[in-house]
């Protein structure tokens, strides 16, 4: 492609640049045609002065219904009462722009999740002539994000607790999250099955990943320990952080007959010594 330097007159003749009027016409065409962004103009006090087809589609108002009304019509009553609209214009005035994501209200009172940019429009002398408001409907994206967050939370809470054989005779159970009834039952069944299948004498229950202990979680832990002992294995409880230790004492939970340690390493040492106690008697018979 050959690049030449042309004079403005030449450029205009080419059609490569637009006259001021044609420019305005094209920009208006942009505002009227664009579907994804609702573009409106507010006067310096926040009253709607121009409207667009996209704005009508998004917010439900026809131009004759909304022009001249205050833009707080798009906000929830609580937000208006808290002065949100006033604040937005203040920020835009002061800093040139205001950006936000939040719920907006349509004419039929339904809500949509919007991304909004309010820009202060100043003339060459710097006088505030009004505000440009560009709104984008992000409801679908927000719903997807919310769903993903819910699922991630569910997965984290419902995820099967892994049971890992760290060496012959020791099963490690790294608990993550809170222990509710359902999880405890699931865990007990799987852990006991694994211990009996492999004839492993020690279950290393690590609670480093348990954010907090309440009475319910502590009871579930105690029950799990009881059941493990019934099948002939034993438990070492590790990952007992200072905060957890404090909670356990304050709740009056008695773990005095359980081997507990603050670190997994220390717990592993205890577990290994438990195994040695198991091994020695057999050796004595050979």
């Amino acid at each position, binding site marked *: 492609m050959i690049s030449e330097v042309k004079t403005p007159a030449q450029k205009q003749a080419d059609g490569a640049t637009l006259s001021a009027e044609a420019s305005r016409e094209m920009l208006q065409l942009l505002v009227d045609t664009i579907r994804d962004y609702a573009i409106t103009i507010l006067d310096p006090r926040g009253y709607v002065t121009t409207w667009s087809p996209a704005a009508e589609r998004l917010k439900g108002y026809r131009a004759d219904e909304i022009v001249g009304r205050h833009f707080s019509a798009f906000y929830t009553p609580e937000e208006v009462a808290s002065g949100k609209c006033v604040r937005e214009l203040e920020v835009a005035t002061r800093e040139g722009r205001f950006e936000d994501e939040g719920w907006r209200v349509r004419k039929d009172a339904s809500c949509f999740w919007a991304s909004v940019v309010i820009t202060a429009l100043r003339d060459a002398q710097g006088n505030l002539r009004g505000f440009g408001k560009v709104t984008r409907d992000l409801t679908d994206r927000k719903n997807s994000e919310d769903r993903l967050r819910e699922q991630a939370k569910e997965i984290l809470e419902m995820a099967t607790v892994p049971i890992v054989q760290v060496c012959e005779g020791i099963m490690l159970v790294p608990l993550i999250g809170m222990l509710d009834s359902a999880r405890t039952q699931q865990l007990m069944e799987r852990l*006991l099955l694994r211990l*009996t299948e492999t004839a492993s004498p020690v279950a290393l229950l690590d609670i480093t990943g348990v954010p907090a202990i309440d009475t319910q979680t502590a009871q579930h832990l105690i029950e799990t320990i009881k059941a493990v*002992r*019934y*099948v002939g294995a034993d438990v070492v409880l590790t990952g007992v952080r200072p905060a957890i230790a404090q909670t356990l004492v304050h709740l009056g939970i008695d773990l005095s007959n359980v081997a507990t340690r603050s670190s997994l390493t220390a717990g592993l040492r205890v577990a290994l010594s438990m195994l040695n106690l198991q091994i020695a008697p057999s050796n004595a018979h050979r």
Partner: protein
Amino acid sequence: MNPETISVVRVRDVLLVTMPADPDDATISALQEKTLDAMDQHTVKGLILDLSKVEIVDSYFARVVAETAQMVALMGGETIIAGMQPSVAITATELGVSLGRTRTALTVDRALDMAASTQNHSKSPHS
């Protein structure tokens, strides 16, 4: 042999009692009688209760086991429960029963090892 009866054999210095899968109350109470009879006949130092076939432990079964263990203890012996099934362990925990002063072992083999090692101590196992 009737699958619902208890088997009692002496192995080394302990009594090995094997419980059937779902004993009725009469069979469960026979546990006590048979254990006491056997301990009378043989010089045994303890009892290993093999529960590996047992599918249900209700409060009556648990009570009889606890009482039997107590009697064995009074006679200077120790009771080891071996091979409890996971589902039984879970329901026993949820039912809230106590099996008395008993130790537990994953298998009869381990229980025999445990019983042998305890005998090596000069002190009584219950101190």
